[in-house]
C-alpha cells in the first residue's frame, strides 16, 4: 500500500494570505487527487493533479484559487490562495493504486482561517 505524507499537518492562517500544502508518496503513482472536507461534511474532489500537465479542476474550483503543481510522480502541492474563513477545512491528498484498485488518503492538513 502507498504511504502518503502531508505537510503541514495543521495551520492557522490569516485572511488574505496563501498556504501551500505538500503531498509526498513513497512510490510512483500516476493519479493524485486533492480533496476538501469542510467541518462535519463529506469529501469533495478539488482536482486531479496530472504529472507533466495542468491539473484538472472540478466544478466550483478554479486554478487561481487552488493552484496545483505536480513536478514528478511522487510529489504534489496544493496552494490555497487569498484565504477566507470559508476555506477552513481539512485538505487531503489521495492516490490510486492501479494493481489493487485501492485509493489511499494522506493524513490531511487541517486549515483554520481567521
Amino acid at each position, binding site marked *: 500500500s502507498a504511504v502518503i505524507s502531508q505537510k503541514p499537518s495543521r495551520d492557522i492562517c490569516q485572511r488574505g494570505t496563501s498556504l501551500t500544502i505538500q503531498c509526498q508518496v513513497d512510490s510512483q503513482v500516476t*493519479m493524485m*487527487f486533492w480533496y476538501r472536507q469542510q467541518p462535519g461534511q*463529506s*469529501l*469533495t*474532489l478539488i482536482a*486531479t493533479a496530472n504529472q507533466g500537465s495542468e491539473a484538472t479542476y*472540478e466544478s466550483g474550483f478554479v486554478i487561481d484559487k487552488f493552484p496545483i503543481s505536480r513536478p514528478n510522480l511522487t510529489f504534489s502541492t496544493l496552494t490555497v490562495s487569498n484565504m477566507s474563513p470559508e476555506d477552513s477545512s481539512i485538505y*487531503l491528498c*489521495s492516490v*490510486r493504486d492501479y494493481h*489493487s*484498485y*485501492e*485509493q*489511499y*488518503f*494522506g*493524513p*490531511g492538513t*487541517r486549515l483554520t482561517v481567521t
Partner: protein
Amino acid sequence: ELKVEQNPLFLSMQEGKNYTIYCNYSTTSDRLYWYRQDPGKSLESLFVLLSNGAVKQEGRLMASLDTKARLSTLHITAAVHDLSATYFCAAPNFGNEKLTFGTGTRLTIIP
C-alpha cells in the same frame, strides 16, 4: 452526474446489536469503496468491492455490492464500542478514477 447517498446519516446502537448501513449510487459504476474516519483523523480504507455480488468481510464488518440495484451495504455484527466512527462509501465515476463520496454515517456504539 454521479450521486451517492447513504443512510442513515446518524446511527446510535447498543453494543452487541447488528445493523446495516446502505449506500445507493445513481449511475453505472464498477466499484464501490468503504472508508472509516475517526474524529480528527484521515480516511482508513475498509473495503474495495470490484464486481457485482462481491462480498468482503473483516472482523465484525461485512460489505456487499449489487451493481444492478446500484446498492452497497455495510453490515455490522455484534457491535463493539471500537467501531464508533464515521463511515463513508464512495463510487468512481464510470470511466475515470474520480471518487464521489456519500454523506457519511456517524455511528455511535453505546455500551
